[in-house]
C-alpha cells in the first residue's frame, strides 16, 4: 500500500506523443478525401480489426497497452510524412514482403495510405516522368521526407554498375543526394543495411551498405526480406517519437532485433533436451526437433521472426522445418557457412573476426555469447554420442 502506481515517465511520453500527433495533423494531407477509416472499411476490415492491429503494434514497440488509442491516432496522420523509396542493387523482395500477401493485411494497407512519393515498383509513371517525380518530391519535401532504401550501393568502377534515369545518373549519387535532404533514413533489408548478397565475396561490384555512402545516421532494418511488421513498425516508431529508436551495435532498432532467434524459438525446448533433427526427413524432423544440427543459425541471429512471423503471421523458416540462415546479420552469406551444416569450429574465427555472425545485439553481450556459442557446440557434440531416443 501507499505505492503510487502512476508511472510518470509513461505519462510524459504519452503527452509527448499527443503533441507530436497534433503537430503532424496540422501538416497538409496527401489526399483530402482519403482517411484511414475509409481505407480500412473499403478493404473489408472492421474498426475492431484495426484496433486489434494497433494494439499488436503497440505491444511490438514495447509500449503499454494504454497507448493503443494513441497508436490508432498516429496511423491516421501517417499520410503527412512523405516517403521516398529507392531501389539500388536489389531484388524487390523487401517491397514484396510488405505488399504481397494473400489478402491485403493492415500493414500493407498502411503502405497504400502513406504518402509514398516515389517507389519504382508501385508508381504509375515511367521514364522521365518517374525521374521528375523523384526530383520534385526531393525538392518539395526537402528536409521533411523519410528515405527508405532497398538494395546495396555498388561503388566499384566508380559506381557504374547501377545507373537510373535517362541521364544515366549513378545509383550511388542518387542515394547520396536523397540522403542529404532526408529527415530520417531507413535501410530496408540486409542489402542496404549490410551490403547483402551482392557484397558476398568477392563482391564484384564493390557493393556497400547505405551507411557507408552517407555520413547521416541510417537505421538498419535487415532481413532477407525483413517482415512487414518490422518495416511498418520502424515507420510508426518514427511517426510517434519523431526521433530515432534505440539502436544496437549494428544500428538495428532494439525493439525488433534485441533478442536472438534461438532464445525466442519455439523449438528451443528440444535444443535444451538434446533432441535434434539429425537429417531432413528423419523421425526428429517429423516431431519438430531442434534444427541446429541441420544448419540452423538461430543461435547467432538477432530478429523477432518467431514472434512476428511472415505471410500475415502464418509461419517462419524454423516453423516450416528449415533452419534459420542468419539473414539479418552482417555478411551472413560469407560468415554463416553452409546452409545445411552447423558452424562448429568456424565459430571462433567469426567471433573474433568481429564480422557479426556471433556478435550480439549489444557490445556487452559479446563475451556472454562466446561462452554460449562454445556451449552450443559442446552440447550438440554430446548429442551425437547420445542420439535421441530410439525404438519408438
Amino acid at each position: 500500500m501507499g505505492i503510487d502506481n502512476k508511472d510518470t515517465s509513461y505519462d510524459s511520453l504519452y503527452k509527448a506523443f499527443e503533441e507530436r500527433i497534433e503537430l503532424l495533423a496540422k501538416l497538409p494531407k496527401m489526399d483530402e478525401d482519403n482517411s484511414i477509416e475509409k481505407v480500412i472499411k473499403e478493404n473489408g476490415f472492421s474498426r475492431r480489426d484495426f484496433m486489434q492491429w494497433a494494439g499488436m503494434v503497440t505491444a511490438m514497440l514495447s509500449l503499454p497497452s494504454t497507448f493503443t488509442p494513441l497508436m490508432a491516432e498516429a496511423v491516421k496522420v501517417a499520410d503527412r510524412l512523405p516517403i521516398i523509396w529507392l531501389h539500388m542493387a536489389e531484388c524487390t523482395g523487401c517491397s514484396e514482403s510488405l505488399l504481397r500477401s494473400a489478402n491485403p493485411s493492415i500493414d500493407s494497407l498502411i503502405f497504400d495510405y502513406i504518402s509514398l512519393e516515389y517507389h519504382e515498383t508501385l508508381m504509375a509513371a515511367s521514364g522521365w516522368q518517374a525521374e521528375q517525380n523523384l526530383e520534385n518530391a526531393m525538392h518539395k519535401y526537402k528536409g521533411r521526407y523519410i528515405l527508405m532504401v532497398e538494395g546495396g550501393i555498388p561503388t566499384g568502377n566508380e559506381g557504374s554498375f547501377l545507373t537510373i534515369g535517362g541521364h544515366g545518373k549513378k545509383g550511388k549519387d542518387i542515394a547520396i543526394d536523397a540522403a542529404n535532404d532526408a529527415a530520417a533514413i531507413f535501410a530496408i533489408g540486409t542489402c542496404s543495411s549490410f551490403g547483402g548478397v551482392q557484397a558476398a565475396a568477392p563482391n564484384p561490384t564493390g557493393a556497400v551498405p547505405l551507411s557507408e555512402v552517407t555520413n547521416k545516421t541510417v537505421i538498419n532494418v535487415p532481413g532477407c526480406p525483413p517482415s512487414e511488421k518490422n518495416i511498418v513498425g520502424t515507420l510508426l516508431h518514427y511517426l510517434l517519437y519523431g526521433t530515432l529508436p534505440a539502436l544496437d551495435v549494428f544500428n538495428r532498432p532494439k525493439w525488433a532485433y534485441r533478442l536472438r532467434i534461438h532464445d525466442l524459438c519455439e523449438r528451443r525446448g528440444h535444443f535444451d533436451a538434446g533432441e535434434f533433427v539429425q537429417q531432413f526427413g528423419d523421425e526428429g524432423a517429423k516431431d519438430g526437433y531442434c534444427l541446429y544440427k541441420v544448419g540452423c543459425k538461430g543461435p547467432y541471429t538477432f530478429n523477432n521472426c518467431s514472434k512476428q512471423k511472415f505471410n500475415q503471421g502464418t509461419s517462419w523458416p524454423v516453423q516450416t522445418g528449415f533452419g534459420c540462415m542468419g539473414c539479418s546479420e552482417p555478411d551472413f552469406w560469407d560468415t554463416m557457412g553452409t546452409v545445411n551444416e552447423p558452424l562448429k569450429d568456424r565459430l571462433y574465427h567469426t567471433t573474433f573476426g568481429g564480422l557479426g555472425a556471433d556478435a550480439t545485439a549489444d557490445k556487452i553481450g559479446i563475451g556472454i555469447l562466446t561462452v554460449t556459442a562454445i556451449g552450443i557446440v559442446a552440447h550438440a557434440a554430446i548429442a551425437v554420442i547420445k542420439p535421441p531416443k530410439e525404438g519408438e
Partner: protein
Amino acid sequence: MSKRVVVDPITRIEGHLRAEVIVGDDGVVQDAFISSTLWRGLEVIAKGRDPRNIPLIMQRICGVCTYSHYLKSTMAIENALEIKIPYNAELVRTLMNAALFMHDHPVHFYHLHGVDWVDIVSALSADPRKASELAFKYTDNPIGTGENVTTYKQRDNTRSSKRSSYILKVT
C-alpha cells in the same frame, strides 16, 4: 531525322531496365535497344561456393518470382552432379511452382505491368460474356474468360462437328 526515345527507369518491374527506341519521321520504329542498368555479379559470387548455398543465392536474383530461380538453380546443380530426385520431390516442386504461378499472375496483371496496358478501374464495368466472345476470336481454348465453361462446350461441339465434316470431305 529519326528520333531517339529513352524510357528509364521502366517502373513496376523487378530490377532496373532501360529501353531506347529509334523512331523514324513516319512514326515507325526503326530500331530498339534494351539494357539492364544494374549488374550484381551473382554468377561471379557463386563460383567456388558450396553448391548447397547456391540456390539461396540465386533466389535473390528476383524477389518477385520468389521460387523460379531457386528451382532452376537446384535443377542446374542436380544436372551437373547427375542427381536423380524422387517422384515426391517432383510433385512438391510442381505444387510450389503452381502456387507461385497463381500468385504471380494476378500480382503482375493488376499491380505491375498490367497497368501499362489496362485501365483497371474500367475493368469493373466490363462484360465478361463479351470478353469471353472476344477471346474466342483469337484462340479455340482461352483460359479463365468468365463465361468459358458453357461457351467452351458450345464451341467444342461446333468444332467437333467441323472436324467431322472435314474428315467426311477427306474421305
